[in-house]
Structure formats: structure tokens, C-alpha cells
């Protein structure tokens, strides 16, 4: 009896470990930024290029920072949910437009000047928001992706929940699904807003 029991237990332990391991999502890298203050930035606003936005302006509010781009396919997937979130007005949503022109991959950046890159980004991003709806209180342009690097962005879309003190409380990588919104983001926002 004992002779078969131990190999069987070993086998079951191995199967459980493999099952757990195979069901983990390797894309979900725990962010070291959770629990840390938002990295500072001052980026031009999409709606008014001469004005900048910086996260400090949101102090005292619970808000979401959503990283998006018009070339990002999964952004289109999550977009209706963001539009829905924006309707209830309880949560401020700020968009970080990530590498609108460079990230597209279909342009030769050597042939595009900084000025025309900016103009192209505004045109493309605005057109996209017009077509799919604009859920953002405002969007900022991160043309070269440097702010994205400070926020540890590596796969657009990404969404950050930031508390009243300006501390990142949650980072969600990939499109926000209704389940994730109602199950994770909304309860957290409600708790932080207390």
C-alpha cells in the first residue's frame, strides 16, 4: 500500500503544480509601481497643445490613467467599456496617448520632423476619439514613449488606478473587460473614494 501511495502523492503534487503554473498568465508581471507615487510628468494636452497636464493636478481625486493609441487593436476592444465608465461621471479618466505615430510602425520616423509628428498625432488621435467616442476628461500626448517607460508600460492598453494622494493602487495590463471593471476596479475606486 505504502509502496504505491508515495509515488501517487508525488504525482498528484506535480500535476497540481503544473496545472497552477500553466494557468498563470505570463503577461501579468507584478508592477513595482503599485504602492508608489505616480511618476511625475508634464505632457501637452491633446485638446490644447499649448497646455500641459501633470498628475499633480489630480491630487485629492481618485482617477484612472488609461494608456491608449489609435493603432492599438485591443484599445478598441476595451473602448466601449471606458465610454460606459465615463457616462457615470463618478470616475475621472485621463488618457495617456502612447507613441501615437511612432508606435504605429508604418512610418519612417527619419522622414518625419518633430513638428509634423505632433500634428499627425493630434490628427490621428482626435479622429479616433471622434469615431469611437471620447471617454477621457483629457488626453495627453506621449510621443516618444518616455513617460510610458516611467510608468513601466509594455503593452498598450494599460490602466492605472490612482488614489487621492497620488499613489498608484492598481495596474491592469491589457484591455479592461466588464468583469475586471466591476470586479476589481470599481470596488477599489469605491473604497479609495471613501
Amino acid at each position, binding site marked *: 500500500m505504502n509502496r504505491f501511495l508515495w509515488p501517487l502523492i508525488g504525482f498528484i503534487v506535480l500535476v497540481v503544480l503544473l496545472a497552477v503554473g500553466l494557468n498563470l498568465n505570463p503577461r501579468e*508581471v507584478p508592477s*513595482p*509601481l503599485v504602492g508608489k507615487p505616480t511618476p511625475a510628468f508634464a505632457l501637452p494636452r491633446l485638446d490644447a497643445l499649448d497646455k500641459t497636464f501633470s498628475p499633480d493636478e489630480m491630487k485629492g481625486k481618485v482617477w484612472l490613467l488609461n494608456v491608449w493609441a489609435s493603432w492599438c487593436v485591443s484599445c478598441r476592444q476595451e473602448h466601449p467599456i471606458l465610454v460606459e465608465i465615463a457616462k457615470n461621471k463618478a470616475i475621472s479618466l485621463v488618457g495617456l496617448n502612447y507613441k501615437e505615430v511612432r*508606435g504605429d510602425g508604418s512610418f519612417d520616423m527619419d522622414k518625419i520632423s518633430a513638428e509634423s509628428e505632433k500634428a499627425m498625432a493630434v490628427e490621428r488621435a482626435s479622429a479616433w476619439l471622434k469615431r469611437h467616442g471620447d471617454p477621457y476628461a483629457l488626453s495627453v500626448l506621449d510621443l516618444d514613449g*518616455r513617460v510610458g*517607460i516611467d510608468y513601466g508600460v509594455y*503593452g498598450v492598453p494599460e490602466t492605472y488606478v490612482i488614489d487621492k494622494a497620488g499613489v498608484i493602487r492598481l495596474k491592469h495590463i491589457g484591455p479592461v473587460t466588464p468583469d475586471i471593471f466591476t470586479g476589481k476596479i470599481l470596488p477599489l475606486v469605491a473604497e479609495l473614494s471613501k
Partner: protein
Amino acid sequence: MTNSTSPTKARRGKGSQRFLVVWFLLAVFHVFPIMAKEAESLAQDEAAEKRLVAISSELRCLVCQNESLAGSNAELAHDLRREIRGLIQAGKSDGEIMDFMVSRYGDFVRYRPPLKGSTLLLWFGPGLLLVGGIGGLVVFLRRRARLLADTPLSEAEAREAARLLDNDGRKS
């Protein structure tokens, strides 16, 4: 007549060969302008580029997770190499550059995770398994040796053995 056609055929063959060679050379050299950009930055500061390669080989590209930052051609890898190049030029040490990356992307970006509480099992797990395996094997072999300890033959068994051996000897 049949003979006179063959030289022309051969000449035509040579012509198309030459065309192929030219075409091939064009195809090969066409690539160089594209590669020139990386080569240029390498030429500017060889020592810095060597450091860049050394550091980025230790880092994981987060987009293609099985590639190093040095080897990846993903957009983000390009950006991060540019960032690291900037940090090298700013005179940052390798440790500071590592911290820059880890503070943004976590320990996951390092191919060699640091030794700390949460990674103890990762570092010493294989050693523990090895020690455990050897220990288990030793216990198993000892127990088996004890079970197979010599027990002297009874008289009847000895006689039977002798008979068999004898029998065997006669046959051969």
C-alpha cells in the same frame, strides 16, 4: 547549323548570369542603408555600446519575454536601449541602470533574479530537490540492503543447491 546555335545560347546564358550577379549584389547592398543606423551609434562610442550590450543581455524584453533586451527587435526594446544608452552617456553606473529598469518593470526584467525572501525557493529549490533526492535514494538503498541481508541456508537448501550445481557441472 545545329552547331552554330550553341555558342549563341552559351553567350545568352552568360548574359543572364551576369544579370543575376548584378541583381544579387543590388539586393544585398540594398540592405545596408537600413542597418546603417545601428552601426552608426556603435561607431560613435565603442565602449559605451559594449556596456549597453552587456547590460541589455541581462535584461528581459517585456514584449517578447523569451528574448533579451539586447537581442529583441520589439519597439519597446529599441526605446529601452535608447534609454539605457542615454543613462550610460549621463555617466550612470551599471547598478544604477539596473535599478532604473527594476523600479519600472520589477525584478521580472532581470534574467538573474536577486536573492531575497521571495526568491529563496527559486534559488535553492533545485539544490533542495537534489539533496532530497540523494537522501531518499540513500535511505531506499539502505533499507533494501537490510531486507536483503544474508540469511544462511538451511541444511536442506544447501543440499538442494549443491545438487543443482553438481547437475549443472555435469551438463557442461
